[in-house]
């Protein structure tokens, strides 16, 4: 064999030659001093290179000494705190203060919105009432889910009663120490005239008729509720049709399609309904708060009227002020408003001759369903909102880059993400409210609800990240990720201010992102669960 070249020598030294070739090289080197020299020189060079590369004469930079997630934390937390402050400020200045101002202008004299909502007016019956309202909402949600699940059997109307009965039973379990009486209709429930219930009465049935007296609150889930008797406490009604023909000493809180009041309500009336009808012979001692499509108010109202309605017709004697948001306001000839009237709506209010009303303060061109697209304020507001969202997302991205990346990746699994999103959208508040009502306690429940709200807000970030990735491609690196987030959030913000569909798009994004979050968390918990199971 001739002298081999340097390439062959290198491959020989590195063990890259096949056996036969290596043997030839080895045999030649044994005989040839020159080639032996070359091999030795190359081998020494290899060792020398390894040594030079391995030498550790440079300290690790300080910024790498800390674990990245923790290392980024101090200013990440500062950003988060700043964001929270910004978010709270935006909420406060954008929503709470205008509300308060409006409420104050409308004559709702309670100085503080929270006080107004929780400690007075239609809501107030202490925290117990709050609890019952939350129970109520949880049950309503659960009802919707269960009835949806049972929709195949929906033909048998008794299913409805059975479901309701089961729900009330569930509700009654934790509340068993309280002195409420629970009745299930089969399918109808009637409290006969002359009979008196001496505690709170909870009813679930297809049709409920109260002819007797309830010396407590009446809480009722029914398709049709007719109250002819006397309710000495509040009525909390969840129904398709709610008719109050008998006197109520407390408040009426109605969540119904049609609400009809033709008797005296001692305290306040709050109705979230499609049609509210306060008949001429009816009366409300306190204030009326109504959210509805149509509201027709007759009789007498001792306090204020606050309405968010498409069309409102007032024929009553109103002791306080009237404040209406809506499209149409009609003040009939029988109306007498002692306070002032403030109307914010699209169409000119109609005032019949003979109506005893002072000047109507009207804010033109604003309808609650139609945001104003003109004006710098609108854009500034949305830029601030986008900014808050972006800073929040950024903080999230920097604090938990891996989680962010995982959750963004989970967004690509459209169906599971959406499924889990819907599930948790309903399940979380239910769990939280059940926690509120039962052993775990109200603090945990409320904390869960707050976390839920935060999670809903956070969820859009992942969808934004996904959207950015779809548009810009998945380039690695933090800068690219931030760019994708910014663009995605911007597009989401533009979409959500679209009239009509914007809200739905936002909801869809939230559900989707929530599902992705849940999937990510689940995947992270899974190995732990597996370990736990093994132990």
């Amino acid at each position, binding site marked *: 064999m001739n002298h081999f070249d*340097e*390439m062959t020598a290198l491959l020989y030294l*590195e063990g890259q030659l096949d056996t036969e070739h290596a043997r030839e090289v080895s045999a030649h080197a044994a005989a040839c001093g020159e080639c032996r020299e070359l091999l030795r020189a*190359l081998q020494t060079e290899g060792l*020398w290179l390894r040594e*030079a590369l391995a030498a550790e004469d440079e300290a690790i930079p300080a910024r790498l000494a800390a*674990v990245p997630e923790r290392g980024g934390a101090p200013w990440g937390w500062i950003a988060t705190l700043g964001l929270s402050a910004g978010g709270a400020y935006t909420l406060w200045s954008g929503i709470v203060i205008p509300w308060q101002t409006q409420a104050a202008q409308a004559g709702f004299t309670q100085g503080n919105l929270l006080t107004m909502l929780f400690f007075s007016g239609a809501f107030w019956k202490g925290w117990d009432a709050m609890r019952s309202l939350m129970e109520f909402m949880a049950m309503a949600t659960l009802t919707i889910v269960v009835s949806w699940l049972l929709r195949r059997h929906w033909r048998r109307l008794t299913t409805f009663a059975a479901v309701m009965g089961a729900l009330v039973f569930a509700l009654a379990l934790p509340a068993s120490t309280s002195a409420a009486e629970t009745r299930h209709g089969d399918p109808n429930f009637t409290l006969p005239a002359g009979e008196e219930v001496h505690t709170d009465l909870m009813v679930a049935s297809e049709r409920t008729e109260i002819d007797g007296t309830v010396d407590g609150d009446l809480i009722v889930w029914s398709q049709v509720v007719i109250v002819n008797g006397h309710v000495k406490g509040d009525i909390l009604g969840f129904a398709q049709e709610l008719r109050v023909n008998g006197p109520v000493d407390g408040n009426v809180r109605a969540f119904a399609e049609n609400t009809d009041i033709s008797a005296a309500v001692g305290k306040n009336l709050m109705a979230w309904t499609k049609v509210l009808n306060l008949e001429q012979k009816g009366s409300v001692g306190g204030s009326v708060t109504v959210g509805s499509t149509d509201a027709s108010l007759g009789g007498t109202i001792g306090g204020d009227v606050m309405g968010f309605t498409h069309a409102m017709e007032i024929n009553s004697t109103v002791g306080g002020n009237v404040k209406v948001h809506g499209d149409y306001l009609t003040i009939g000839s029988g109306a007498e408003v002692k306070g002032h009237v403030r109307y914010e709506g699209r169409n000119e209010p109609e005032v019949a001759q003979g109506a005893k009303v002072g000047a109507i303060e009207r804010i033109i061109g604003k309808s609650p369903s139609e945001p104003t697209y003109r004006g710098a304020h609108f854009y500034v507001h949305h830029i601030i909102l986008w900014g808050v969202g972006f800073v929040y997302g950024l903080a999230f991205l920097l604090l938990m880059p891996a989680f962010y990346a995982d959750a963004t990746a989970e967004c690509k699994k459209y169906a599971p993400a959406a499924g889990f999103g819907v599930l948790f959208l309903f399940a979380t508040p239910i769990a939280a409210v059940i926690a509120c009502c039962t052993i775990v306690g109200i603090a945990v429940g409320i904390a869960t609800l707050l976390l839920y709200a935060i999670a809903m807000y956070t969820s859009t970030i992942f969808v934004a990240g996904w959207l950015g990735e779809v548009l810009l491609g998945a380039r*690695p690196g933090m800068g690219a990720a931030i760019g994708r987030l910014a663009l995605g959030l911007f597009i989401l913000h533009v979409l959500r201010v679209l009239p009509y569909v914007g809200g739905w798009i936002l909801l869809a994004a939230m559900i989707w992102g929530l599902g992705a979050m849940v999937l990510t968390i689940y995947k992270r918990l899974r*190995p732990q669960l597996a370990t736990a199971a093994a132990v």
Partner: protein
Amino acid sequence: MERRKTPGEMSAAELADVLAQVRAGDADAWGELYRQYAAAIFRFCRRALPTREDAEDATTEVFMKVRQKLGTYDSSRPFTAWLYKVASNHCWDMLRRRRIRQDLETGDLETLPLEHPDPDQLERLQAEHTSKEVRGGLAKLPDRARLALVLRYYADMSYDEIADTLGVRRAFVGVLLLRARHQLRDALSEGAAGTRGAAAGSNA
């Protein structure tokens, strides 16, 4: 082939334990893993990339990738090897994105216009240069040449792994390495011929 050991390296069982905890989302375990390997990855990046700043950024980014891709790590293979693979892919991506043109210019390496080395001269070169100078010379090499040397002589990668990382044929890896060695020799000789001594450490 024996892998280089990181000082204070965890035992295989400890490592498996920590990895399982990290996969479960345990922040403390992640911290431990990071502290264990950050230095090695930084040193790798420091050698593979031209500047210290690049190396610092790359280290952070490599660990982000490690965390994302930990699920794909096959525990039957050495963890360090996998770690270096992730790091080298990242560094090569980074360089390639930045220096597409240069790669095209140095793409015609398959022909080997290499003069046979003089063993004596080679030994002299080795004797005259400190480790720091060698790494300084390394920083002057074209990206691919530098990375090839680092992958082979620092990260102890096989020819297959190097070929895979750099996107070349396996048969070309030897050529790449030999060529890179020549380029390093040249860089060091030039440095020595120029400002001998003063040049020492100029690139550190």
